[in-house]
Each structure stands twice: as C-alpha cells, then as structure tokens.
C-alpha cells in the first residue's frame, strides 16, 4: 500500500482528479470497455425510472464504499481485506434497499433482488481493490462516483431506448403521440425482453469504439 506521498496541497478538482471522474465515463467505462456489471443492465433497464433509481443507488454505494475503504485503508488487515470490503458494500446496499423500500416502494418492488445484487456488482469490489485501498479518500471518492456514473449513463441510455421503443413512454409518461399509433405505429414488444438490452449495449459499444479508435483491439 504505497500512498501518493505528494504532500503539496492539491485543488479539489485538479486535472488529475477530473480525470478520475471522466475516464470511466468513456475511455475506461466499466460496461462498454471492461464489460462488468452486465447482468443488472439486462434486468432492470426496461424502464427509464428503474434504470435511474438503480444508477443513483450504485453511485451512492460506490462513492461511499470507496470513501470508507480509503479512510480505513491503513487499518484494514490485508488478510481479511476482501471480507472487510464485502461487509462495507453489503451494509451500504442494505441501507439503500431500506431507504428505497421506505420512499419509493413500487420502484423497489420492480428492482426486487437487483438492489441486493449490487453487492455482487464486480465494478464496486474491483474499484475498492484496485483503487481505494491504495489512495487517499477524496480521489477514491471521485473514482467511485466516476465509475458508477460510467455504469449509470449506459444504464440510462439503454433504459431510454428500451422504454421509448418498447412501451412508447419515458419515465412512465406517454411520449409517442396517439396519432402515430393511429397511423399504424406499434410498440416493439421485443424491446421489453432482456435480449434487446444486450443488443442495445452492443450498439452502444459499437458507437463507443467507433469514436475511440484506440480501444479497438486489432490483434
């Protein structure tokens, strides 16, 4: 565990810290580049609303987990560090689940087991292990938020297209006007099924690679 020994005061959002936030949104995106956390993307992106609540939950869990682990990093016995990480994540996830049940009950019903399964989202533990254990609290917090946001925007994009094309609504409000239906437009029921989430993610990855040529594996 070698810390960055640079004691100079660094501005809160220095160029380096901004990179922590922005890298996982594009270059280092957990879903489109590292292909982690795919199963929750398939399961909960039928509607924009569930995607949004899930994205916010993951941002909260990941930011706080990174922050807490980073604060504890000198005290955590290396031999049980994975257990400590899991305990912190599990506690935060249970808290999020309880809060959702109390304030947005129907969304929590739709997310059902997937809130609990945030625990198994490999992105979170990956960041704790790879970053928070060796870095100061503030950069760790930003790293957590950045990675969760990178996961979140993909979730929201998939949710947006699936709800729009599958149900003709956004956040539960009808957006495809009635006359379109009268003219013969139909919602694509296929979009509601999980395979279409996979295909949508595939399209996002395609567009993403197209714009970031250095990510393309030519081997």
């Amino acid at each position, binding site marked *: 565990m070698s810390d960055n020994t640079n004691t100079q005061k660094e501005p809160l959002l220095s160029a380096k810290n901004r990179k922590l936030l922005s890298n996982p949104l594009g270059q280092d995106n957990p879903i489109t580049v590292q292909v982690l956390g795919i199963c929750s993307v398939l399961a909960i992106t039928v509607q924009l609303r569930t995607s949004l609540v899930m994205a916010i939950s993951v941002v909260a869990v990941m930011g706080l987990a990174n922050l807490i682990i980073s604060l504890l990093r000198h005290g955590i016995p290396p031999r049980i560090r994975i257990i*400590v990480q899991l*305990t912190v994540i599990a*506690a935060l996830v*249970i808290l999020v689940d309880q809060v959702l*049940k109390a304030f947005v009950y*129907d969304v929590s*019903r739709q997310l059902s087991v997937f809130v609990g399964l945030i625990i198994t989202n490999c992105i979170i533990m990956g960041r704790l292990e790879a970053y928070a254990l060796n870095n100061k609290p503030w950069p760790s917090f930003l790293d957590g938020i950045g990675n969760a946001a990178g996961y979140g925007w993909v979730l929201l994009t998939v949710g947006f297209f699936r709800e729009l094309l599958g149900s003709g609504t956004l956040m539960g409000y009808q957006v495809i006007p009635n006359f379109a239906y009268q003219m013969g437009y139909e919602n694509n029921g296929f979009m509601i099924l999980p395979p279409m989430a996979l295909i949508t993610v595939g399209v996002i990855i395609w567009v993403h690679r197209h714009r970031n040529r250095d990510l393309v594996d030519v081997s």
Partner: protein
Amino acid sequence: MTNRYIFIYASSMVVIVALVLATAATLLRPLQERNMRIEKMQNILSAINIPAPRAEAETLFERYITTTKIVNHLGEELEGDAFEVELQDEVRKDLADRQLPVFIADVEGETMYIVPVRGGGLWGPIWGYIGLKSDLATVVGANFDHASETPGLGAEIADRPFQAQFPGKRIFDEDGNFRPIRVVKGRAPEGDLHAVDGISGGTITSNGVTDMLRNGLEVYKSYFEKIKTS
C-alpha cells in the same frame, strides 16, 4: 498484524455495521409498513377490478370495502381485524385453527367478496386475491403475485394478460358443486368456465396456481354456502 488485531478489527466492524443497520431499519420501519399496507389495499381492490394508484389506495379502500370479516373453515365468524391476518402464517396452522379473512365490497350497489389465497410456485410462495360476485361463484377478477418465480415464465402470473383470463370464470358449477378454476397446460378448452390458459414454460407455477385456487377457496366453501342459503 497479529491475529489478535484481526479478531478485534473484525468483531468491532461487525458490531458497528450491525448498529448502523439496526438503527436504519428501526427508523424506516413505519414508512415501510405503511407502503406494504397500501400495496395490500391495491391488491385487494385490483381483485374487483378497481385500479388504485398509490396515492388514492387508502381512500378507495375506505370507500369500496365496507365490511371485513374473519371466518373459520366451518363458516363461523371469528373476532379480529381481517386486514391484519397474515395468510402466510394461517396456511401453516391446522385447518380448524385457521383464520380466514373475507373482504366485502360494495361497488355501485353490487356486493362483491374478496378472499386471499396462498400457495407455492416453483421457487417460492405465490399468493393472490380472488374477487367474487354476489352469487359467490362468478369471478370478478384475480390478482396474483409471487416471491421468486422465473421472470418471463412463471413470473407472468403477476402480469395483466394472465390475470385478465379470470373475470367471468366460475368456481362452482351449475349444480352448485365446488369446481375451482384450473390452469391448464397450453390452451384451455373453448368456453370452459373452470379453466384458463397456462403459461408456456411455467408449468410448475401454473400447477401451483391451480393447487392454490383449489386449496385456498375450498376452505371458504362452508362460509359461501352459509351466505347463499341465508
């Protein structure tokens, strides 16, 4: 780091986490319980085809559900609040000790009866509410839910298309014999008032619904007969 340190570290971490979670659970409990009550009201109302948005569920429940009763399997009325009866606990008891809730609704002058049912699907419990017309034979509507059936297969029992098959079906035949609704594999025979289409790929859940409807409604038989004759 010594083993001693690791033990102390792990134990104190567990205690702290437990304290935080226990506090949160206690503080949020009242809100969560209210949400569950509202959901129960929504489910009961949906069994008589009254859509109840969250915000209005309590008002609508007050308006339509006029009487609630607890009966036993002999049809005798018992003391208590039917809304608070947890069928989950009741189905484990001996038949003679079981408390069976009945919700009686008045919808524009027409009396309707709603009874809860509970059974087992493939992975876990399934449950629901059945709304009956005043003849106590014709189904007004049905509402089902499940704990952990397979999404896309068995879980479809909680969806509209499956439940929409129930209105108009009957649980007693012409002669007044108890004949519950079966969920049949594939398509139900045309015009059969005692069967609905099963769910493809969800046969065990479908059979679970059949069993649940038979067992769950049978216990009310005496009570229904009592009302019909009175």
